[in-house]
């Protein structure tokens, strides 16, 4: 299950939905809004999604993970809209009989989601500046593509 959510996520409920007595391992990844990015103090974020294609591509990534790894269940939910510091931006959870598959699949899903799902992040800095991440076209600028993701 991949979905976009305009409202705050409830990770406990998301994880409960993955409960399965066949599962011995559950690995989750949460992406949180950090207070700094590449040394710039961040005050808030906004995420914008191209919803129909984001949902299709997210579902494809989960299907690939189910195919590649010995999974029982998997889910990924991504926030849209305005987020404050410390807020949960993306949640990935997977269950498997054994932990190796769960770790590998969770990592696969978040890596692929960050690379492929059409969602964009705009950072707001304490200076008042803003930047669409990965969209700078000149070096040295806030929001330069060189910055590492979470």
């Amino acid at each position, binding site marked *: 299950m991949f979905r976009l959510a305009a409202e705050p996520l409830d990770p406990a409920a998301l994880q409960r939905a993955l409960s399965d007595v066949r599962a011995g391992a559950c690995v989750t990844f949460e992406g949180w809004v950090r207070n700094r990015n590449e040394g710039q103090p961040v005050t808030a974020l906004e995420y*914008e999604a191209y919803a129909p294609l984001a949902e299709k591509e997210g579902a494809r990534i989960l299907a690939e993970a189910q195919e590649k790894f010995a999974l029982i269940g998997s889910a990924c939910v991504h926030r849209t809209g305005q987020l404050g510091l410390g807020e949960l931006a993306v949640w990935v959870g997977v269950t498997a009989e054994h932990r190796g598959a769960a770790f590998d699949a969770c990592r696969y899903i978040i890596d692929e989601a960050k690379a492929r799902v059409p969602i964009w992040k705009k950072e707001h800095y304490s200076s008042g500046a803003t930047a669409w991440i990965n969209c700078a076209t000149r070096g040295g600028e806030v929001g330069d593509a060189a910055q590492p993701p979470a």
Partner: protein
Amino acid sequence: MKTVSVQYFAILREQRGLTEEKVSTTAATLAALYDELRARHGFTLPGDRVRAAVNDEFVAATAPLSDGVRVVFIPPVAGG
């Protein structure tokens, strides 16, 4: 002359100042359409950093542009 609908997101939406428009064009490919729109609206992202979608599916930028489709140009993504 073809007429297509173009939807804008994120940095392209801000630079264009709107979310969707009808465009009449003679562009043969999606890449050619992006270059045309970039020249017209001053988009900062070069064509090689933008992906394309037609009717909510990814397509190659070199794909031919058909009449009546809905086009989205996709800036570098940054979810998570």
